């Protein structure tokens, strides 16, 4: 008998020895909430700043200039972008732009000064940004290896809380939830920003 059959048999035995009582699942917690745009932006910004991310709000027309300014101020000369990123977003950046592809190796990613991507959805109450590998976000390694991540969040894709944000996701896509830069509290519980993930997270919120 395979271990699969053995284990499934054991589970059935276990449930036969102690027959369970059917369990109803209460769902009284809050779902489907909405909030005015201004409040969403304020809440998301508050949470991101709390996590030591840097927030740059801007109007849609200001996006290229904002991205360029953030990259310039951070001293980025070579940045990576996913293949599906809107060219306009980095039109004002005067450094070198490397378009990611599966051929770009890990050490090559490591040599980039930063990366610019879009995002799928954000959750204001927890300050979380969801990336799902869509063409404007790229494969997971792209937003992981470079030390600086400029992530563009459209205010129309900001939800109040986790239940609302999850409804916008496609389960099968590899999904990364980001709440601030990489951090550890493993030494005497003192928080240190930046271990293995990008140590600098810049969020550009487009109104």
């Amino acid at each position: 008998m395979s271990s699969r059959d053995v284990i499934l048999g054991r589970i059935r035995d276990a449930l036969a020895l102690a027959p369970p009582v059917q369990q109803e699942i209460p769902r009284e917690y809050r779902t489907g909430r909405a909030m005015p745009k201004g409040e969403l932006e304020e809440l998301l910004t508050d949470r991101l700043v709390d996590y030591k991310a840097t927030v740059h709000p801007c109007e849609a027309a200001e996006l290229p200039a904002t991205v360029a300014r953030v990259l310039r101020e951070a001293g980025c000369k070579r940045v990576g972008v996913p293949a599906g990123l809107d060219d306009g977003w980095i039109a004002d950046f005067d450094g070198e732009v490397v378009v990611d592809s599966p051929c770009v190796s890990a050490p090559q990613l490591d040599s980039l000064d930063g990366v610019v991507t879009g995002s799928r959805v954000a959750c204001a109450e927890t300050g979380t940004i969801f990336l799902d590998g869509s063409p404007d976000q790229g494969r997971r390694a792209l937003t992981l290896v470079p030390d600086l991540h400029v992530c563009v969040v459209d205010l129309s894709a900001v939800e109040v809380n986790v239940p609302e944000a999850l409804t916008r996701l496609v389960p099968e896509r590899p999904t990364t939830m980001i709440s601030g830069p990489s951090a550890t509290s493993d030494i005497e519980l003192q928080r240190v920003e930046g271990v293995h993930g990008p140590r600098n997270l810049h969020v550009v919120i487009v109104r």
Partner: protein
Amino acid sequence: MTRVALPSPAFPPRAPEGAGNLRGSESFPDAAHHELANSQLRRNISNATHTIREKRLQVTGELPDWEQLRDSGSAIKTDVMNRLPELLEQFEAAVTARGGVVHWAQDAVEANEIVAGLVRETGSEEVIKVKSMATQEIGLNEHLESEGIRAYETDLAELIVQLGHDTPSHILVPAIHRNRSEIREIFLNEMADVDPHLDDDPASLAAAARRFLRHKFMTTPVAISGTNFGIAETGTLGVVESEGNGRMCLTMPQTLITVMGIEKIIPTYADLEVFLQLLPRSSTGERMNPYTSMWTGVTPEDGPQSFHLVLLDNGRTAALADKIGREALNCIRCSACLNVCPVYERTGGHAYGSTYPGPIGAVLTPQLAGMHGSHDPNSSLPFASSLCGACFDACPVKIDIPSLLVELRHQKVEQAAFGSEAAAMRAASIAMSSSGKFTVAQKAAGLGRLIAGKKGKISALPPPLSGWTDARDIPKPPKQTFRQWWGSAEGQREIADARRQAHE
């Protein structure tokens, strides 16, 4: 008429002895004796647990629907246990459909063999690892070592523990028992190519770990992880973390091997909305942890192109066979119960002798690995609690740990009662079964007045009562019991006076 005997269900086996880390070498009181003497450990743990406790209360307090989330989390996990066979089969099919390979391991021994075999197939002699309770439970690193495979822990705390040739003392912050100068020493002694001028600032220490592991992340072809949940509906797995080492392990290598306890199932993707709110707030006291990675099978041109999932029993089905005890399987490993436990706060995690310390460990470990006789260290775990109930209040999935502890104590005594104690308990039961016998026993207790003598207190008694009198007195028994007073003329006069006052 022919009678057909249906096979009667058999009680599933516990995790095997001698494999993995589910049994210490000494009883809890003996182990606690050593740990209590370590004042540095006491300070570190007390500081850490108090800090996380405050943060947790703050972020759970800001959700007006926290209790409703707990109710749902608890019910979802109970429902999962009720429907485990069908959910596991659904989950397996979903993972397989998305290009994952599912393996089933009856126990630690089989799981270790499967993982080692998979690593050998890749030809790699090194693996990188994300912090995982399941692989710690089965002793995977030790097994890989014996097979000539070097496993690198990549979580900072796990790295500190590994380089320090130590064992974790906390589920969430495994190196909580080490302070910065101890960690600096460990890094200087054990980390290749470390800067000899390394100082003990946590930021410098974290940077040293980053440098040390960066190359490993870029070059190691195999990663091993655990998982926080496996979603039956979609086959999706998730790892909740902070440092980005999880993302690195789950993204960079060509091969990913995930070891998952069979109880980690949640039914649907939408159920994440409950657990992603419960877990970070209960665990690190954050609204959300920095990184959560979710993946389903293999994604072409993104992340590992070979994915293996090992589903682990190792005593979980034995726990499931216990109607009361199975509740412990609902645990989502947040460690909130450790942080509020007054016993854990004093002894730390090592005293529990298991991968799972603290209140949940005291109920989970004996259920997974059994309590074999009075001398088994695991037999002492259910008694390692004052039953103060703080763990139950803190548990995000409402596991009634105090009741489970009481139930396990009952099971322990049913299996093998402690000789003299059983006799004393029986005697007390008989003495208190009627007031007649009880008043006789009370007269005997009154003899304590003689022991107490003029001091008015009892300061020394023979074992096991010396456990009390080593540090505390017992007051001199009163001249009169309550019932003697009640039955006396004086008592009745006082009651009559009180009655008169009521009518005034």
